[in-house]
């Protein structure tokens, strides 16, 4: 069904999406908790910054990433010298770009989920002796789990579709940074690429559909596990 080149594109896209999802999890969870449960000066600004990737042109994010994480960028040079990490023109850079672009979706879903956890249950748990960390791990996290999983899947699906920031930051290198959307774009730019582009489009549709259905099934199972039989949802 898929030729080796298409398989490579698919594998790379999944790899980038998977790692960007995993990378955004701790950051998104921490931001979601901060925004849902804490009051601090600059909260509105932080909230706006988290949402920036949703409204900024992706090319801006890509260019900023290039400036900061490029090999001569402020952070990029330091990371390469001290940790040997390189993002520029690598698949890891594509994952980083996808992480940033997916962050607002993940944070929004997780924040809503944490907001929906009844603070009175947390208060009850604290009178039973649960300190802040134990409280988060044993009450907030399990009760917000469906929303957190949903946020992760949204980040994953968003990564599969990431285009502008990726192509600006890490370019479109076959086998390294050329994910599905980038490959489709490349094919539409060469004569006679239409048929292959269409095949990849069908693949993209199936992939996204799969992620959305998986998200829905996961949500249902998680709700069932938390609230039991009687809850429909």
């Amino acid at each position, binding site marked *: 069904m898929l030729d080796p080149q298409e398989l490579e594109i698919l594998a790379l896209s999944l790899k980038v999406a998977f790692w960007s999802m995993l990378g955004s999890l701790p950051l998104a969870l921490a931001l979601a908790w901060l925004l849902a449960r804490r009051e601090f000066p600059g909260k509105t600004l932080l909230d706006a910054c988290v949402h920036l990737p949703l409204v900024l042109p992706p090319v801006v994010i890509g260019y900023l990433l290039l400036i900061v994480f490029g090999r001569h960028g402020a952070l990029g040079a330091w990371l390469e010298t001290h940790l040997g990490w390189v993002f520029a023109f690598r698949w890891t850079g594509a994952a980083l770009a996808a992480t940033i672009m997916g962050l607002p979706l993940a944070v929004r879903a997780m924040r809503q989920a944490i907001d929906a956890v009844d603070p009175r249950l947390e208060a*009850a748990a604290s009178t*039973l002796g649960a300190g802040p960390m134990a409280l988060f791990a044993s009450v907030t996290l399990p*009760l917000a789990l469906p929303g957190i999983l949903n946020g992760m899947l949204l980040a994953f699906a968003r990564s599969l579709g990431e285009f502008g920031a990726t192509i600006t930051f890490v370019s479109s290198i076959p086998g390294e940074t050329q994910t599905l959307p980038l490959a489709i774009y490349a094919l539409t730019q060469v004569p006679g690429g239409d048929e292959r582009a269409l095949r990849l489009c069908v693949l993209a549709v199936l992939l996204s559909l799969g992620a959305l259905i998986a998200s829905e099934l996961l949500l249902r199972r998680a709700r069932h596990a938390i*609230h039991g039989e009687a*809850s429909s949802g």
Partner: protein
Amino acid sequence: MTLEVTVEKRLGSLGLSVAFSSPRGITVLFGRSGAGKTSVLNAVAGLLRPERGRIALDGETLYDSAAGVDLPAHRRRIGYVFQEARLLPHLRVRGNLLFGARFARGPAVAEFAQVIDLLGLDALLDRRPHDLSGGERQRVALGRALLSAPRLLLMDEPLASLDAPRKEEVMRCIERLRGALRLPILYVSHSMDEVVRLADTLVIMAEGRVITAGALGDTMARLPFDAKFDAHLGHFEAGSVIDARIAEHDAAMGLARLEFGGGSLYASGVAGSIGQRVRVHVLSRDVALARTRPEFISMLNILPGTIRRIGSPHDAGVDLEIDVRGTPLIARITVKSRVDLALAPGDSVHALIKGVAIHPAGAGQPD
């Protein structure tokens, strides 16, 4: 155990400013909704930070605004049973019961098996909270608090959202646990029935302040003569509470003789063994007065006493406090009767008691 509470806090239009201390046994905070009772519990639990004040339990300071002490809720070792149970929906009953045990910072109050037994939770262990009835939820919440190794238990109208049979079910559990465990309880209620059955100490609150506080019997005897209480809670009938013990059963007559400081009382339908302590509730309208000891009368309970004070007349009549050899008894008679009999403080009278309600006694009562 002594709990000392001094709390000041502005809560919207309510200026909370209370001070009371609670000895062993059950202390009931009694008052109308909005009097600030729950806020006092929250401050004791560490869920509400007062502006000023001091909260100490057995000499350990939990909160002191002057000294800058504010122990967080999870380190206070105070169990809290909320009005709405607040069970964790993602855990089964067993998980809820054991939730606090893993954080326990002190000696256990009761073993798991004992709590299961006292509260009748055996059949519920594998159920989920939303499959439970209201009464079952409150019993689980009570068990969960007990198993977190608390030094004090707070209960915020745990019966308020239950129907009558469930109320009775949970009330019985509280009475059982009072008898079995030596755990002090601070209990919020707006029901006189709960006060009479549970309280050892009564603290009456209105509009954020303590109106009166003290041992249950004495405090209830003061109520009809307290203008402050009248103004805040209206003139309802509290009655008298007498702590007694079962002296003998007369099976043939279906009667039990109860002994108390002022003599003997006869009551029917009393369960319990000889020597067992019981609490007797006498409504003031069930007490009639006679100048001389009546003869040829069906009433069994005729107690001689002295009029200690007479309240001011109100819609339902007039209340008199009778001193029955040291035990206060409130009688409510019509103004006409008072005038006809020319009753005055210091006069000797006979109190005729028409009916009594008998409840199991509390742990904090004297022998």
